[in-house]
């Protein structure tokens, strides 16, 4: 399959992730959109790894996965802590720093 297929698919996935981060007010869905963006980057890593016949791209997918797992653990803990403090997780309600 030509590389442009994978590049186009990855770009579309990344744009959908950006749309989700910008539009949704549920922080859990925002995190899922972030995962979608990680996923599109991973797809490009694997596609170029196969294209150039170099295995290093696939290694980077592993590092992205572990970092994403750490990020999800910390992010979900933050959401739970915010929910305990404010009794809501609506992102638009988190305006304590607004002057």
């Amino acid at each position, binding site marked *: 399959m030509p590389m442009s297929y*994978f590049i186009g698919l990855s770009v579309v996935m990344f744009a959908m992730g*950006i749309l989700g981060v910008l539009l949704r007010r549920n922080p859990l869905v925002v995190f899922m959109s972030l995962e979608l963006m990680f996923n599109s980057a991973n797809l490009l890593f694997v596609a170029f790894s196969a294209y150039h016949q170099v295995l290093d791209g696939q290694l980077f997918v592993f590092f992205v*996965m*572990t970092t994403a797992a750490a990020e999800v653990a910390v992010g979900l803990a933050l959401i739970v802590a915010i929910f305990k403090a404010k009794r809501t997780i609506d992102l638009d309600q988190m305006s304590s720093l607004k002057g």
Partner: protein
Amino acid sequence: MSLGLIFMYAALALVVVISGVGLITSRNAIYAALFLVLNFITVALLYIALGAPFIALAQVTVYAGSIMVLFLFVIMLLGAEQLPIAEPLRGQRVLGILLAVAFLAEMMLFVMLRGAPTIAGQAVSPEFSTPATIGMLLFERYLLPFEMTAGILLAATVGAVFMTRQPRPEHKSALPAVREEGQE
């Protein structure tokens, strides 16, 4: 390329796009999570087609398995399936869509002007990405990043436990009955 192969790739791309749209449009966060699982599994199929079966299996077990279970668990723990529909910030939706479309156009333009490789790469051999070769590369050339990710995971685990712990009562020996008496 045979017609069946083109059809398969088109169907996979269609499923990826539809599940992504479902993720960002579904009102219920549980449905969004399930759409994301579908997306991950479809991308894992693309990984297999690209000659990376080990990555595909890691994707299914780590992403579609454990991370999404964590998401669903937190959604159900907080009861955060649905938020009120009312939009407090005016113009946010229009601006967000505009920015996302601008990004998409920019990237498409970049890829076209930059001249993406349109030819297909030669098919990878089955020995290209066996777990053995990946493990050799991981523990030889990428040993330091590997150890660093271990540190990141440990720090994240400790941080998650620290942030969600219950505040410890100041005097462990204080009896609840005495406290109630004092309050009265």
